[in-house]
């Protein structure tokens, strides 16, 4: 069990600074996910926490102890690598027991820990094989097994699922979550896949270009993104953004799109956006809030505004259907009922759940809130 704190963390490769002074804390037992686009510094940050990269500036502490200069072997951590990094010349059994052997644990104890781990991950029958003789999914299990066999105080994962096919990835994701619930060990998990981040995380750190955009629970990131980047990064399909103006229409503050179409704001929104009246804004609405489906929470809600959108492309997903369309002069996606029989060229009535929409500053991308 461990707490990790990262303070003003900076990483330079030569002259080139790739992590620009980031701060975050991981509390005991928490599952923290670092997410962000490729090259944003996720792996570099994780590798500094592991001790595999030197810290250029700032501090990393584990359980209150500064570990900047502590070698990886003394940090009591385990790491699951993207390429699994199983020792090819050792059997699965030896792979699982290697960390314990290095810590001079007696043989009988190692054997016991290996068997226990093998049971948890259901890899008992693989113990005598070499990594080469395993499938990708089996290697993944062994890699996770090697991490948990040692019972370290901190787990680190660097995109452990990215080499698996889609089905196996979902399966292993659930497995990791199950393990976390069972052991409740502090974990830091790196991925560029927002779905993985949302499903696994207690809290998420969203990184971009070596700086933190937002730290929060999946719910906070989804419902209260601080800016356009986070709003667009979290959620799939991504949020629709439409250029608009916050204007007066029929005596009420409304969203007015470039093509003249207007959407009335809710009473709460009128109040919080009062100071932005007349401003150009970026209107953001998620596909699932631009739908013909009524849910328990939006039914009869005040913010439902009926509109009609033209159907251009239809992507049926079974449970629901994605409709690619246009609204206010921008390309948009909406998520409608799966059974709907839709043909391109027709129009479909949907409703916008205004209470779930956001406004962003078109220049800075910051989400507008009551000031």
């Amino acid at each position: 069990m461990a707490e990790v704190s990262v303070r003003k963390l900076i990483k330079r490769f030569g002259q080139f600074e790739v992590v620009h002074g980031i701060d975050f804390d991981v509390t005991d037992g928490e599952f923290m996910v670092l997410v962000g686009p490729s090259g944003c510094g996720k792996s570099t940050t994780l590798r500094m926490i592991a001790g595999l990269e030197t810290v250029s500036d700032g501090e990393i502490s584990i359980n209150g102890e500064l570990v900047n200069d502590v070698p990886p072997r003394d940090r009591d951590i385990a790491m699951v690598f993207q390429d699994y990094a199983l020792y090819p010349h050792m059997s699965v059994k030896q792979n699982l027991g290697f960390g314990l052997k290095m810590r001079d644990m007696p043989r009988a104890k190692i054997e016991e820990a290996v068997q226990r781990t093998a049971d948890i991950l259901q890899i008992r029958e693989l113990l005598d094989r070499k990594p080469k003789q395993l499938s990708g999914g089996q290697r993944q299990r062994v890699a996770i097994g090697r991490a948990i066999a040692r019972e370290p105080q901190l787990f680190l994962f660097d995109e452990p699922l990215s080499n698996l096919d889609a089905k196996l990835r979902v399966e292993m994701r659930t497995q990791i979550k199950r393990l976390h619930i069972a052991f409740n060990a502090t974990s830091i998990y790196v991925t560029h896949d927002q779905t993985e981040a949302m499903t696994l995380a207690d809290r998420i750190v969203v990184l971009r270009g070596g700086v933190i955009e937002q730290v929060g629970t999946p719910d906070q990131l989804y419902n209260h993104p601080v800016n356009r980047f986070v709003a667009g990064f979290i959620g799939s399909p991504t949020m629709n953004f439409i250029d608009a103006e916050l204007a007066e229409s029929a005596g009420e503050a409304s969203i007015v799109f470039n093509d003249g179409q207007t959407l009335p704001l809710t009473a709460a929104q009128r109040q919080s956006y009062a100071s932005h009246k007349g401003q150009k804004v970026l209107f953001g609405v998620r596909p699932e809030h631009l739908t013909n489906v009524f849910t328990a929470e939006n039914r009869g809600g005040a913010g439902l505004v009926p509109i009609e959108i033209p159907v251009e492309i239809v992507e049926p997903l079974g449970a629901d259907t994605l409709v690619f369309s246009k609204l206010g002069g921008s390309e948009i996606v909406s998520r409608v009922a799966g059974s709907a029989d839709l043909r391109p060229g027709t129009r479909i009535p949907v409703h916008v759940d205004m209470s779930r929409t956001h406004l962003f500053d078109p220049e800075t991308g910051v989400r507008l809130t009551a000031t």
Partner: protein
Amino acid sequence: MRMSTKQRLGDAGTYLAYLVVCLFFAGPLLWLISLSIRTAAEVYVSDIRLWPQNPTLDNYFSVLGNQLFPRYLWNGLLLSVAGAFGAMLFATPAAYALSRFEFPAKRPVMIGILAFQMISPLVIMVPLYRYMDRIGLTDSHFGASMLYIAVAAPLFTWMLKGFIDGIPRSLEEAAMIDGCTRFGAFLRVIMPLSLPGLTSAFVLNAILGWSQFIIPFILLSKPALQPIAVGIFNFQGTYNTTSTQVLAAASVLSIVPAIVTFLVLQRFIIGALTAGAVKG
């Protein structure tokens, strides 16, 4: 599926080219074998024929009967293995460092190592002899081994670096997280995984050492210390009539161990050469 005529013609052309190349390289060897089974009288006959009129194995018997011959073979083995082994001791840590660490002037260092490889001992023969003579290391297997090592180390280092480059870094990182020091990770993970590369570099360098001529030629004047490549020359002096045919037999005998080693271990050698080439 049937091959088209065009494809078959193409294949025939390829094989024809192979044949020409083979003959080109095998020619001198065949001639050497031909010489080695002639009588002294037939060595200088003017008409060119590969198979002599009176083939004989006498030359081989006289070489094998020479009491120094086993000695030459032993010396050759000793020097080439000592050279490859010593080179391995230096090359392994060097290759690891060159593969894994970033340090100033890394590229110049690597090019420098390669450049040393390209200096033939022939060019520095005279100063080399004087130097070794001054420090009293001529006419000793120890002194000669040192030079064998020096000559083999650059190639050994490059081959091994290429091999280690192909071993993912995450393996030793995993080992370091699992509780190893960097050196521990090197010993427990990198070394076992480099074994194929080490073996092939070792075998290749030993074979190269076996055919090393200049270094033992300038350093070792006592026949009892000389390896086979130099020892062959002594057969020239031993027989006062024409000795070409005996020399040829000695030469054939001297390359047999190298060829046998190569054939037995070719899998390793080719592995090392391509590992260095592709990943280096």
